[in-house]
C-alpha cells in the first residue's frame, strides 16, 4: 500500500478488492430475495427488510420464522442471536475508527458485514499511513451494499417464478456452509461447531426454532471450555 494513500485512492482500492467476494454475495442476495417472497412477505416488505437490516443471515432467519408464523418477539430475538457476531466485529473495529466523527462511525457501523469486516480488519492492521483507511472500508462496504440490494430486488421480483422443484431453498444452507467453513480455524472452533450441530439436531423438536438459540449457547460453552482446558 502506498504510504500517502489519498481518500479517493483508498475508496477505489476498497471497492476493487471486494469485487471477487461478489461472486458469493450476489447469488446469496438473490436467494434472500426469493426466500422473502416465498415466506409470505410482500415484495415491498422483502426489500425493506433487506435495506434496513443489510444482513443475509438475519434476513433469512427472520423470513424462516415469519413463514412459520412465530411470535414477533421470538423472531426478532432469533435474528438477534445470529447477529451477535456483529458485537465481536464492532469491538475489533472500534480502536481503528475511534478518531472519526460520530456521523462517520454511525455510517460505517450501518454498512458493516462479515465480508467487509474480514477484508478491512486486515487492511487496518497493515503498516503505513492509516489516516484514510476508513475510506477503504467505505469503498468495500458500499460496493457490497449496492450489489446486495440489487440482487435482493431481482430475487424478490423473480421469486414468484422459480419452481419449487429447483430446491433453491437449499442454496440458503449452502450459503451458511460457505460462511461456516472459514469460521472454523482452531480446534476450539471445531468443538463449538460440532456441539452446536449435535444440540441443534437433538433439540429440533423445540417450538419456535428455539433449538437455534439453545444449540448456539451450547456451542459457545464448548468452545470456551476447550480454550480454558488448553490454557491449563
Amino acid at each position, binding site marked *: 500500500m502506498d504510504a500517502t494513500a489519498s481518500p479517493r485512492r483508498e475508496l477505489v482500492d476498497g471497492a476493487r478488492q471486494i469485487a471477487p467476494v461478489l461472486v458469493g454475495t450476489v447469488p446469496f442476495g438473490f436467494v434472500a430475495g426469493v426466500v422473502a417472497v416465498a415466506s409470505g412477505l410482500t415484495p415491498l416488505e422483502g426489500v425493506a427488510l433487506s435495506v434496513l437490516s443489510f444482513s443475509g443471515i438475519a434476513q433469512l432467519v427472520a423470513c424462516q420464522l415469519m413463514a412459520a408464523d412465530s411470535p414477533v418477539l421470538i423472531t426478532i430475538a432469533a435474528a438477534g442471536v445470529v447477529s451477535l457476531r456483529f458485537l*465481536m466485529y464492532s469491538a475489533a473495529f472500534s480502536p481503528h475508527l475511534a478518531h472519526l466523527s*460520530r456521523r462517520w462511525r454511525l455510517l460505517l457501523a450501518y454498512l458493516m458485514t462479515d465480508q467487509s469486516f474480514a477484508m478491512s480488519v486486515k487492511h487496518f492492521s497493515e503498516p503505513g499511513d492509516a489516516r484514510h483507511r476508513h475510506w477503504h472500508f467505505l469503498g468495500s462496504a458500499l460496493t457490497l451494499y449496492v450489489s446486495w440490494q440489487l440482487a435482493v430486488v431481482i430475487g424478490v421480483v423473480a421469486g414468484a417464478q422459480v419452481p419449487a422443484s429447483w430446491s433453491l431453498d437449499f442454496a440458503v444452507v449452502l450459503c451458511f456452509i460457505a460462511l461456516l467453513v472459514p469460521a472454523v480455524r482452531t480446534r476450539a472452533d471445531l468443538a463449538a461447531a460440532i456441539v452446536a450441530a449435535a444440540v441443534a*439436531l437433538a433439540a429440533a423438536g423445540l417450538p419456535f426454532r428455539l433449538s437455534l438459540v439453545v444449540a448456539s449457547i451450547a456451542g459457545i460453552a464448548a468452545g470456551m471450555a476447550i480454550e480454558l482446558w488448553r490454557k491449563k
Partner: protein
Amino acid sequence: MSHWLVILGVAALTFSLRASFIVFADPHRFPHAFRQALVFVPPSVLAAIVAPGLLAPDGAIALGLDNPRALAGLVAIGFAIRWRTPLAAIASGMTSLWLLQWGLARLG
C-alpha cells in the same frame, strides 16, 4: 402488520449490535470472558443452522438415501474446505443435489 414490526425490530437490533462498540462503548470495559465467548459465536450459530438443514430438512433426522441434502451438503463442505470461496460451496452443493434428485427419481 406483524411483518413490519419484525422488519423494524430486526433492523434496530442488527444496527445496535453493529454500532455497539464502534459508536457507544469501549470494548476494554467488558470482561474478558464476554469477549472470548463472542469468538465462538460464528462457528456455533452457523453450525446450528447448517446441521438441521442437511440432516433434518423436513424436521426429523434423516440420514438415508432418501435425503440427498445430507450427501450434497458433505460435497459442498469438501469443496468449501478445498477452495475457500463461497461459490465453490454453492455451485458444488446445488449441482450434487440436482444430480442426486435426478438419480433417485430414475431409481424410484
